[in-house]
């Protein structure tokens, strides 16, 4: 299996994530699209790790999963707080910082 198949697959997944981020207005779905982009880059790192036969990239993927878990905890707390304030998860309501 050539390496470029994996490059193209993760590129397609990343672009789907970007299109979803631009298309949707629900803050939670936008957050999920960001997770999708993170996973696409993780897949690319693992493919390159196999190509160079080097475990460091897999450790990097491991740390990126750690950071993603912490990020999700804080991000969902922010979304829950926003829902409590304005009773909506529509990002268009939050387009003004001062409200």
């Amino acid at each position, binding site marked *: *299996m050539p390496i470029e198949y994996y490059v193209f697959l993760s590129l397609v997944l990343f672009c789907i994530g970007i299109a979803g981020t*631009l298309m949707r207005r*629900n803050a939670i779905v936008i957050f*999920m699209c960001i997770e999708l982009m993170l996973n696409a880059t993780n897949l690319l790192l693992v493919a390159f790790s196999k190509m160079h036969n080097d475990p*460091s990239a897999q450790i990097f*993927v*491991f740390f990126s999963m750690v950071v993603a878990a912490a990020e999700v905890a804080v991000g969902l*707390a922010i979304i829950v707080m926003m829902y409590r304030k304005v009773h909506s998860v529509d990002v268009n309501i939050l387009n003004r910082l001062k409200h």
Partner: protein
Amino acid sequence: MDVLQTVFWILSALAIGCALGVILSRNPINSVIFLILTFFMISGHYILLNAQFLAVVNIIVYAGAIMVLFLFVIMLMNLNADTEPQKSRLIQIAGAVSGGTLLLVVLAALRTSMYSVPLERQSTDIGLIQNLGQTLFTKFVLPFEISSVLFLSAMIGAVVIGKREPASGEETPGAALRQPNQN
């Protein structure tokens, strides 16, 4: 076409289809389910790439912990297809076109510049937990310890953000509703 290639194409098609399902489904709960399926397909790719430890961690951490957190939040807010805010058709088309344009540009740039390296077929054991653990606890032991501090600060941050503010002096619409609960 041998077995591994067939598995690769099936997994890739399912991953892309499920990822499209994430961004196209109206109901946020369906989006979460599609995203969990996408993570399972990506874990299958990890197994094909001899990264068994990461495949298991991907399922446990992403599909098991993170997506359940998403599901809890969505169910807590009682979101469904009726409450889903919809962008206008024009903005949706613009988003899809810009994503597709990025895909085309990077694809065209990579097609001519990349040299094809076939990933060697023989199974390597760098993805096993023994080798990864040895690398993690010798070369990368300092980042590993620092990530524990990151987790602690993330936990404290989530608790501080999620804590209810005192009801006095609030002018949010929910303040009147919340008042009786505190007696």
